[in-house]
């Protein structure tokens, strides 16, 4: 057990770390233990009643709220009804703010991923063209650099005035927060292509469009994927702001309404769910990165 924490130089997988290289060795186990200790201290602090539940609800409270809001029994019953095992769904389902946790989550996922998808299909081509052509760079650079450092909350009122209080305004706000990192990383990716690779392609008879497709875009792919990881994180960050105005359901709404009623346990629950969804999406992105660009950092 202990050797999971000590950085043994005898083990073959750590032999690749050369002496003095910063940050060598594995950290997975250490992270797992940290999480366990944090959860344990949370439980202990609430168990000993050191802090009022209003400020810090116990893990049991949060999980209890999860059961209530998620309506797991209700959904299970629905499945039984579907297969004809039970006549009628008799389970009550309260949810929170007129929606179950699943509905809140789906609404937020819909908003974040619609915005993210739209941003990817527009910002990546624009970023690539900014890297390729001076006219495109000249046109888009001042716009992106101007709005990029402004917090989304600052231009939220303007978005509402322009686009109303419907879903489109929320999606546009999240879209804008995803757009800048995607475009900037795509542009940086294009600029990182080695001129030798481009020259090599031309001296093998490639046309300009073949160079863009077979060399520039492939070489930019690692940075485009990095941009996607940053962008989706920005998207989640902006979600709560986007749902502040006139949204009926969504994880952001759930958290904000819960805060209004001082239902701290539900605030916790919402934060945890957003964190977990974002974490799994990041895992997915890292897996895509390993599959699509295994050469990253090796050339």
């Amino acid at each position, binding site marked *: 057990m202990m050797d999971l924490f000590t950085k043994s130089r005898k083990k073959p997988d750590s032999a690749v770390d050369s002496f003095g290289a910063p940050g060598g060795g594995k950290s997975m186990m250490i992270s797992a233990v940290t999480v366990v200790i944090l959860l344990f201290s949370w439980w202990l602090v609430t168990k000993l009643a050191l802090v009022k539940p209003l400020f810090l609800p116990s893990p049991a409270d949060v999980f209890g709220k999860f059961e209530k809001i998620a309506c797991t029994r209700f959904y299970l019953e629905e499945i039984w009804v579907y297969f004809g095992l039970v006549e009628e769904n008799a389970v009550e389902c309260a949810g929170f703010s007129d929606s179950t946790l699943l509905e809140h989550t789906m609404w937020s996922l819909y908003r974040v991923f619609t915005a993210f998808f739209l941003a990817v299909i527009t910002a990546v081509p624009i970023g690539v063209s900014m890297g390729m052509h001076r006219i495109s760079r000249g046109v888009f650079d001042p716009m992106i650099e101007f709005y990029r450092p402004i917090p989304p909350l600052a231009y939220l009122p303007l978005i509402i005035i322009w686009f109303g209080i419907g879903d489109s305004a929320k999606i546009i706000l999240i879209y804008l927060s995803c757009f800048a990192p995607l475009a900037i990383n795509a542009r940086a990716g294009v600029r990182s292509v080695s001129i030798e690779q481009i020259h090599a392609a031309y*001296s093998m008879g490639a046309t300009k469009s073949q160079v863009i497709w077979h060399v520039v875009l492939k070489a930019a792919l690692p940075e485009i994927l990095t941009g996607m990881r940053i962008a989706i994180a920005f998207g989640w960050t902006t979600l709560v702001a986007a749902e502040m105005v006139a949204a009926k359901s969504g994880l952001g709404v759930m958290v904000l309404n819960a805060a209004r009623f001082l239902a701290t346990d539900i605030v916790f629950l919402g934060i945890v769910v957003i964190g977990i969804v974002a974490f799994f999406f990041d895992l997915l992105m890292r897996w895509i990165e390993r599959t699509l660009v295994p050469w990253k950092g090796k050339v």
Partner: protein
Amino acid sequence: MTAILKLDHLNVIYPTAGEPVRALDNICIEFQPEEFVVALGASGCGKTTLLNVMAGFINPSSGTIALKDKPIHGPGKDRGVVFQKHALLPWLNVLENVEFGLKIQGVGKAERRAIALDNLNLVGLGDFGSHPIYQLSGGMQQRVGLARALTSDPEILLMDEPLGALDAFTRESMQELILKVWDKTHKTVFFITHSIEEALFMATRLVVMSPRPGRITHQYDLDFCRKFIAGTDTRAIKSSQDFIKIREEILAIIHGEEEEVM
């Protein structure tokens, strides 16, 4: 015999904030079929600029450059380039890198695979086709680069210090390998190096260049590489009296120029 490549009164001038830099000054040189021309010179003598002009990556400020009597405008598959850093595409494996040129030219899969494999065998990497290039050593990567440049069957091979980044042992065996490939393919080669020994060993014609302005100062016809092809041992060539004598002569030229500048 018609020249493969002919450079006539070629000038390249880089505009700078101050005095414009004459990177190449009035270069006239012809490349005959199956010649192995090596350019040697200190940094800044314009050898890489010369190669870039021949490859079509740089347009000359004045003068003409023609391949088999046709003027050159921009890069093309009739001139294969091997770079100092391998410049292979890491998202393709070894075989895909070698066949890349034929693929973008629209050659069918079976045919281009066969040609690529022939060229990989030529550089001794026939068994490495499915390897990712980032798992190969520096010497192997340069061999893939050579196979790739050969695959389009160019009129001339342009090699820009291809062995500069390799260790001394790999470098010697790569020199031998390149000469063997040259002998088998009968290509015309233009090869740039910093190393006097390498230049003498490999060249049928040695071009000594000197900086400020970049120009050709001396040319030598050599036959050490033909002796190697005929079967003479590399060490025996490099330690022969003739070799040492001409090596010292060229060293004196290059040192002499440096003192002039000082």
